[in-house]
């Protein structure tokens, strides 16, 4: 495999709320290689989106605090860049597709204006060349009549088309890394498939590494090679996608997988749940955050935090992992 295009080491994030400061991401590290696809999975509110925003440096300064050893994109540490330099990286080397296509685009500019301004910002050149690139990008993303799309305003498009336009915008500079934050959550199934297909195309056509953030294991499975499982701000398991589904080692991962409704006429209505509820982030249990809900908990789990145990490519943070 080639060199990593995105490396994050020891990222921690705190959030200030009216009830005080609380930690939402706790010391996570991972890396992605060029052309690779990695899924970041976890329940809502576990810190996935915060992690993505931290990578791009978009955490709101007024109420968040971040500590991190480095965030490297194509080997350059984002943390060491000034505003100007970082803006050159954003949208060019690393791009992002957001969860809500409905609001992620500026309602008062046309699709064409918004996409071409990204191109002009990073690649430069004339208005015409930017327009050409825009049309091409839209066409590659699967629009049949890109010349009409460029003239439309976001509200004139459906959610799926907006998300596709977002992807066209994200891919216009052929970034090395694309972060897709729940790109399909708000969309129906057929559109989901279309989006996944486009992400796959990006990877194969431009060698873009993709960090796919989702709570939906099915989506992760359909696209990703590797999976990171996150719970209450911590990474619990990191492994190959197929291996995770076949032999999850962390009890939480196992629980997650068993929760996927299996659509089969033989076993109607068999939906498993993980007992208990996700703890409130202001009141996290000591030790392993999952321990109160885990049926394999021992005293140790409540006293100290388990570290990643490396077993080849399969890493897990658990004192009593599943076999």
């Amino acid at each position: 495999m080639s060199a990593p295009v995105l490396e994050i080491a020891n990222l921690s994030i705190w959030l200030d709320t009216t009830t005080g400061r609380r930690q939402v991401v706790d010391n996570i590290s991972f890396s992605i290689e060029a052309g690779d696809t990695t899924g970041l999975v976890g329940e809502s509110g576990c810190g996935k989106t915060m992690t993505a925003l931290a990578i791009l440096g978009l955490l709101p300064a007024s109420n968040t605090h971040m500590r991190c050893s480095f965030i490297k994109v194509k080997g350059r540490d984002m943390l060491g860049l000034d505003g100007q330099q970082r803006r050159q990286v954003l949208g060019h080397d690393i791009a992002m597709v957001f969860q809500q296509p409905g609001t992620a685009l500026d309602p008062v500019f046309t699709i064409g204006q918004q996409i071409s301004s990204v191109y002009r910002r990073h690649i430069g050149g004339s208005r015409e060349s930017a327009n050409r690139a825009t049309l091409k990008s839209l066409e590659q993303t699967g629009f049949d009549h890109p010349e009409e799309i460029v003239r439309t305003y976001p509200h004139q498009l459906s959610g799926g088309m907006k998300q596709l336009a977002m992807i066209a915008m994200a891919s216009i500079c052929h970034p090395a890394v694309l972060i897709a934050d729940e790109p399909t959550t708000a969309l129906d199934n057929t559109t989901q498939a279309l989006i996944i297909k486009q992400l796959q195309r990006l990877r194969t056509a431009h060698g873009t590494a993709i960090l796919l953030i989702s709570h939906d294991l099915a989506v992760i499975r359909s696209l990703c090679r590797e999976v990171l499982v996150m719970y209450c701000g911590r990474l619990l398991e990191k492994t190959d996608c197929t291996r995770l589904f076949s032999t999850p080692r962390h009890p939480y991962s196992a629980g997650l997988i068993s929760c996927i409704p299996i659509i089969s006429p033989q076993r109607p209505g068999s939906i498993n749940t993980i007992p208990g509820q996700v703890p409130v982030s202001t009141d996290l249990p000591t030790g392993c955050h999952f321990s109160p809900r885990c049926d394999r908990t021992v005293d140790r789990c409540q006293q100290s935090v388990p570290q990643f145990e490396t077993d080849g490519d399969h890493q897990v943070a658990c004192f009593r992992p599943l076999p």
Partner: protein
Amino acid sequence: MHSVWQRLKSDHYGMGGLLVVALFALATLTVWTGLFGQGWAEVSGNSWESTSAAHWFGTNLLGQDIFQRTLFGAATAFEVGLVVTGFSTLLGAILGGLSGWYSKGWVDEIILWIKGVLDSIPFYLFAAAVAFALQGRPWAMHLAMIVTFWTTTARIVRGEVIRIRQQEFIEAARAIGLSQLTILFRHVLPNTVHILLVQATIVFVAAIKTEVILSFLGLGIQDGVSWGLMLAESSQEVLAGHFGNFIAASAALFLLLMGFNLLADALQDATDTRGAMT
């Protein structure tokens, strides 16, 4: 409400504002209970006496005590503020609630029309018109403000009621067969209390400012003292070198408005749940 108070307590500016408002409210109470400020009408000295132990802020042209008049002015401001805020908030809540609950219906249309009409008449002209129509009645000013100030409250309440109406617990209330008005007044409007509270402080500020300007123009208070009347007197006096009325009235007015503005801000922050989102 408890959490609102908790959040408010942590806002130093807001608490400062609350303190100022409380001090003025206290002053008002002393006037109402007859402890101080009763000598506002009495000539107790000569013209233009400077500050002394007997006359803390000096005296005015007639020889009346400016300090007592300032105190009484605070009571006037509070009286107008309370009456106007109370009635206009009530009116705004009821009409805004009805309007939102029956939105797009004829009730809504009529209320919106009344609102539009009242919004289209320049306020001071309207106040003057009410003063004409109610020649010499002491509550003409109150009425003019109540009748015009409810519209903003109603607009905000209407939006909120439309929002709440779509929520599940309202569906549930409907499902168990509660009447429309019961749901509106028992279950929907109580949920707008935090908005009404913030809006009430804003109306209070507007009422005080307006009282001062109307009294200044002679359309306001009839028998009594208002900071506006003191300013009206002073606008001629300052050029003759007498600043007592002007400084006392404008400083008192500034302090009270500042206090209310800070409080309104803090209340708005404390009741705004959006700020707590991740």
